[in-house]
């Protein structure tokens, strides 16, 4: 009697485990096909228009209530700053969510200025790498961050293909990850452009729906094919980004990583992640079954009765 019920229990456990496995595995595979919200907003950055005035940095500083800069925002000597023995130009920090860098490409007679900030990916690797779900991709296109649930593991900083999230190392207590949030709380949520876009005097930054910006960018390339590289950086990189770039110089000459994959970063580990629920659900039942099969001839019921006999 007790043997039969145990077998039934094990069989039921296996079937249940298989059912549990299939559902989440399917969901995990489907997640890779997400290509952004249909009406997600973005910004088209036209490097041919940027004059390197750094107004966007000043506007960002004010909008996000960031600390006062070391140098005034009209001090252009920052373009000469390099770090790590001259191998690296300025990067966004906890005190500056966006920075402009100057490049001198080979075949251009004038410098190129490039603004960097969070590119607000369609399928952000910071978000998919975060195990406490501190990140959210909003329907408006912004990738925002909830410091209240962050445990400070900084996996997002490693995961970001653009090296954007910064960490408030300066804070001893409760340090948090800091990055551009597309002015989500104060502006984009209410349909207003981010502060950097609004202040840009040359309209090097164009705010709009990502799908419209792609159309506009293609029109600009078509209208002036000699002036632009025939590519929109961000259209296809790592699954597409909300911020898109047009350039006259080849993208690799103005600081862009042109070796990035087309697929979202999560695609690299999707197969493995699909297996996790299966392992968790099936393995305990499966190996318990193996164990019981392997120990079939050492019948517990018999042992028990033997003990009982001895006791009697």
């Amino acid at each position, binding site marked *: 009697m007790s043997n039969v019920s145990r077998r039934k229990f094990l069989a039921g456990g296996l079937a249940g485990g298989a059912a549990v496995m299939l559902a989440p595995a399917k969901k995990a595979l489907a997640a890779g096909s997400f290509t952004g919200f249909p009406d997600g907003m973005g910004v088209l950055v036209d490097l041919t228009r940027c004059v390197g005035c750094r107004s966007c940095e000043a506007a960002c500083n004010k909008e996000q209530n960031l600390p006062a800069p070391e140098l*005034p925002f*009209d001090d252009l000597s920052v373009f000469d700053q390099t770090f*790590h023995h001259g191998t690296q130009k300025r990067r966004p920090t906890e005190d500056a969510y966006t920075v402009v860098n100057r490049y001198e490409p080979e075949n251009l007679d*004038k410098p190129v200025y490039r603004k960097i900030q969070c590119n607000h990916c369609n399928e952000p690797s910071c978000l998919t790498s975060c195990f406490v779900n501190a990140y959210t991709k909003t329907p408006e296109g912004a990738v925002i961050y909830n410091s209240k649930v962050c445990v400070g593991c900084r996996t997002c900083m490693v995961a970001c293909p653009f090296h954007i999230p910064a960490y408030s190392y300066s804070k001893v207590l409760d340090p948090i990850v800091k990055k551009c949030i597309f002015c989500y709380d104060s502006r984009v949520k209410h349909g207003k452009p981010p502060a950097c876009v609004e202040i840009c*005097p*040359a*309209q090097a930054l164009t705010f709009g729906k990502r799908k*419209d910006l792609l159309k506009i960018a293609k029109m600009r390339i078509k209208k002036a094919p000699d002036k632009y590289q025939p590519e929109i950086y961000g259209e296809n990189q790592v699954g597409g980004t909300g911020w898109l770039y047009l350039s006259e110089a080849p993208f690799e000459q103005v600081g862009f990583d042109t070796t990035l994959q087309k697929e979202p970063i999560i695609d690299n580990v999707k197969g493995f992640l699909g297996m996790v629920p299966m392992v968790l659900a099936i393995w305990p039942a499966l190996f318990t079954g193996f164990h019981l099969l392997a120990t079939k001839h050492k019948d517990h019921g018999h042992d028990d009765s033997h003990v009982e006999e001895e006791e009697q």
Partner: protein
Amino acid sequence: MFVASSLNLRGVFLLLISLLLAVNSYAMDAPETVQINALANYYEPVEFDHQLHVDVSGDCSVCHHHTTGTGTTDLYCSKCHGQFEEMVTVSCADCHSAEPFSAESIHRQSQQDLFHVDMNGLMGAYHQNCLGCHQEMDGPTGCQECHARTEAGDKLYHSGEFAPKAPESAASH
């Protein structure tokens, strides 16, 4: 010749009016104009010498596209705007919106049947047109060479009297 000079005078008049209106309308409009207001706060209005620019360019369409009835210099535009016909208005602000990213303007970008979906805002049009030409013609290109920064501007840029007290030469990272 008379026609040309009267056109010029009219151009000057219209431009001055439009510049005044452009500055004023920022303040007069609905709450959404706050941004432009803030911008007007950062720099003083430009003292634009229109006659000088007429003399230098010699062709209204260099700045005014096809609107002044002098034809257009751009072959791309001449496909539709080839006729020598003066438009009702020639002011920059009448076509180039002071709020290029308002909800209305964003909606405009989505319109499939609209040719000019990629039209610059007023500030973008001014700066691209002025600065682009100034770079080619060796005109002034510094921000404050055309418009002086206000106190609010100094505050925003942390410059002037709002400059950081002990500016360090950035060496460490």
